[in-house]
């Protein structure tokens, strides 16, 4: 695999479980054990009620396409073709930024609310990025 030359995240103590999950092929969310709210990005307390009683769980990886752009500005590290930058809504509720992959990067192919599923793109031994592709079946 070619050396990954795109910007990569630096996990912090509060987010490490998420990135470890991605490395292991799991999309990990957190939820509050008091009010049951699922949330993202990671933090060791519930943003809805302030409780520190939160748990990490494996999300379904299912999502729908909430909104996106197709970037035409030069990003040689993303190749020489326009590419999507998307926000998906996870089945569990939270939204996250990602790229929609395994799909033509065109307005016709990328329709809002289309069902998606997570796939992990390995950047190096530490970091895999959660990407989303059209759901199979």
């Amino acid at each position, binding site marked *: 695999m070619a050396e990954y030359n795109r910007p990569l*995240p630096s*996990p912090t103590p509060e987010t490490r479980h998420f990135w470890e999950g991605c490395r292991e092929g799991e999309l990990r969310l957190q939820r509050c054990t008091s009010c049951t709210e699922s949330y993202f*990005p990671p933090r060791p307390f519930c943003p809805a009620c302030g409780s520190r009683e939160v748990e990490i769980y494996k999300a379904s990886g299912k999502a729908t396409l909430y909104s996106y*752009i197709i*970037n*035409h500005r030069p990003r040689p590290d993303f190749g020489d073709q326009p590419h999507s*930058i998307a926000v998906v809504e996870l089945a569990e509720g939270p939204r996250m930024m*990602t*790229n929609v992959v395994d799909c033509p990067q065109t307005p016709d192919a990328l329709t809002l609310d289309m069902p998606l599923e997570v796939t992990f793109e390995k950047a190096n031994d530490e970091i895999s990025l959660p990407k989303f592709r059209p759901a199979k079946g």
Partner: protein
Amino acid sequence: MKQKTVAVVGAAETTEMGKIPNTSQLMLHADAALNAMKDAGLTAKDIDGVATAGDSPVEIAHYLGITPTWVDGTSVGGCSFMLHVRHAAAAINEGLCNTVLITHAESGRSRVGARRFSRDPASQSGQFEVPFGITNPPTMFTIPALRYMKQYGVTEGDVAHVAVVQREWASKNPRASFRDLITVDDVLNSKMIAWPFRLLMCCLVTDGGGALILTSAERAKDFPQKPVYILGTGESCETPMISQMEDFTTSKAFRVSGKKAFDEAGIRHSDVDHLMIYDAFAHLPIYGLEDLGFCERGEGAAFIREGNTRPGGKLPLNTNGGGLSYMHSGMYGMYALQESVRQMRGIAPAQVPGAKISIAHGVGGMFAASGTIVFSNEPL
């Protein structure tokens, strides 16, 4: 804040605007400040409060020779100057200082002495947005628009129309960067930046700056310029990450800031003669019209398309040409405030006849923060 207890008594932009390769960012601050002090008939010795964003107010105060008793470095993006006006009004009313200078400058195009912008890969955005290819505002601010367009059946042509109308205003402004009239087709045929956004739906990148001087309404009567009173103010913030905006069809920060400003001012929407909505991109005025309550949800684009905001329309909007056609050095909020002050003084290049109440509404970051100022040119 208390209505009309504080007024703008000095207001000016940098001597030049657009491309200023022979001047550093720091000197652009000073140029705008010196112009505003001249406008108010003051010198640095008369200033005892300093606010700026991006750069440090310490740097500005020292460079100009000001010893302040009040300092505000609130830096929440392009609307920071609306927040400075709000904070300054409170500080003046509380007696923390008497005469406040607010400066903005950015060598946005020439990058002479301009700070570098980088996101820490351990920051929230650095971890959860940057790895997916966002670079700068054109690849971030634009992301919510498609959801809005689908929800309300708004077309790419509707969004393009915003730029067309603002160019009409710019054509009346000799200082505007772009003054030639354009059509919806011109906008749709301009270079694709980040579908559905074309070049002419995105703000300019220029050099420039501006400065405001505020003091109590009591003292304002003795200044050379017609005082422009602060009638109401609002501020709020939502999220540092566009992906985490609560609802992609509406800005919570806009709604909270706008409502606060209207409530403080005690006015109705029909009282507003002139409106500035920070237009970093063509969808911003649509969101602003709705979130400030001038239009129902989903009706902002039609309101603009039908001509209500164009010259001669019932709600003149972005009368300097806006960030899309006038200028945009990076933190445009200062220029929206400057145009509101010109309109209230009655000296704007595209003056709205008889305008008595003007609102300047700003955005900071990518729908991250907001500030709203209601101005009046009539004393209490």
